[in-house]
């Protein structure tokens, strides 16, 4: 074992060497929880928002009407409860509640993904709802006017445009999840914060360890934001497109260049 370091950088180097794999494993779990939680949350958000956008058809009978109302009510409660309580509390209630009353000893990682997903889903539902509202009503009227159903209209016309519009907010949620998954250390998920705590404990070097931890979080979030920016650009499509033939000359090839935004 090497000698006890004397300087800040000495400690950083020492801790990195000693606990490097611990940090990496923690970062990996954090990323895993954030990615799967954000993706599942996004899917939940889409489903909730589309279900909430269902209108009660005037011709429908009593049962379908009551069904749609009940579904809407339940979804509203879900969104309010999970947006209105801290994730750290949700983690405690779900993890220990399942253990005490359902006799269910959840795997910590599975519990973490579940909690982040449900929590993110509630936010995403609102984000998607905003995205759907941001799409001009003329778009869905046009779809209805050629006979497309509500689901078809949503799936092929409204949601693709809504998703493009909300991508920055979805990216935000992802970044928030990378950071906020740290609260899951209360249910002993071996994510980055939890790993850092155990690394700091041995030599009681909290400052140096959490300095490293902070930098790792920053690298994760920075990389993710850049990647999302790339994705946004890709969804905007190519800057050029070519028209073959014009009204005056059938052999013409005209290349249009989209304006930079």
């Amino acid at each position, binding site marked *: 074992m090497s000698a006890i370091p004397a300087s800040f950088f000495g400690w950083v180097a020492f801790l990195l060497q000693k606990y490097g794999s611990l940090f990496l494993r923690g970062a990996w779990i954090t990323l895993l929880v954030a990615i799967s939680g954000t993706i599942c949350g996004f899917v939940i958000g889409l489903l909730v928002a589309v279900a909430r956008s269902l209108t009660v058809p005037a*011709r429908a009978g009593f049962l379908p009407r009551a069904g749609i109302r009940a579904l809407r009510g339940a979804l509203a409660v879900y969104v309010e409860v999970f947006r209105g309580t801290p994730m750290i509390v949700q983690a405690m209630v779900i993890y220990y509640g399942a253990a005490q009353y359902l006799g269910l000893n959840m795997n910590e990682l599975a519990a973490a993904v579940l909690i982040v997903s449900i929590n993110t889903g509630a936010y995403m539902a609102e984000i998607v709802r905003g995205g759907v509202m941001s799409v001009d009503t*003329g778009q869905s*009227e*046009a779809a209805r*006017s*050629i006979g497309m159903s509500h689901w078809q209209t949503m799936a092929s016309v409204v949601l693709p445009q809504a998703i493009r519009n909300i991508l920055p907010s979805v990216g935000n949620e992802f970044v928030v999840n990378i950071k906020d998954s740290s609260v899951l250390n209360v249910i002993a998920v071996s994510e980055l914060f939890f790993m850092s705590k155990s690394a700091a404990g041995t030599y009681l070097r909290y400052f140096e360890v959490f300095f490293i931890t902070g930098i790792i979080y920053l690298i994760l979030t920075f990389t993710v934001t850049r990647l999302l920016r790339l994705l946004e650009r890709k969804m905007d499509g190519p800057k050029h497109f070519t028209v073959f033939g014009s009204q005056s000359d059938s052999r013409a090839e005209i290349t249009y260049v989209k304006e930079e935004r």
Partner: protein
Amino acid sequence: MPQSQDGIEGNNGAELDAVIEVVGLSKRFGGNEVLRDIRFTARRGEVVCVIGPSGSGKSTLLRCVNLLETPTGGRVMFHGRDIQGAGFPLREYHARVGMVFQQFNLFNNMTVMRNCVEGQRKVLRRNRDDSEKVAMKYLAMVGMDGYRDAKPAQISGGQKQRVAIARALAMDPEVLLFDEPTSALDPETVGEVLSVMRNLASMGLTMIVVTHEMGFARDVASRVVFMEGGLIVEEDAPEVIFTNPKNARTREFLARVL
């Protein structure tokens, strides 16, 4: 034109050749009565032009015919069947009664080609090859076949409206409803859209056109309906409406716009 599969065409003693019949239609938004006791018929092959000042209810009438608005009273009949009746095949009705909007409403997330293909595939269940063939036929007809891969944001208003017409035609509709199709266009591009519409009229397509283009109404309409304040004030052949209107309000309106 497609054959009916599940008896969308009744014929309960309705007027012969009547495709769309509006019977005593009314519409109110809250306390505001926008349409009152509207009655008119569009027969096969007719071009009915609806004119009148803004706010007279013309667009609402068209939107009620297409059920984008739910009428508060009266009925709309398609081949003698109430389109709000129980068991009426609404989606088939929408496929057979196309609509062209003032703001074009092309699907912004799709290319010109996919705009014309999507409805055929999703609603008519045509395969990709057939849908693309049909789409190309109508895109060529409106002179937009060279733009198949362009996105709506990349073409002009007049071009968008021509694609919108091709999109509606690709569903092989029996009737096309036009809601002020040229009102959002630059003066230079109005002509290109109107000439496409003239072409459709000459092919015998049944059309109901809400418009401010008096020249078009005079030349192309089989009948002209003049609306004001939610009522049909006068309905007659274009020669009569434009040269010798019976109603004083029609005369006033035409004096202002002509």
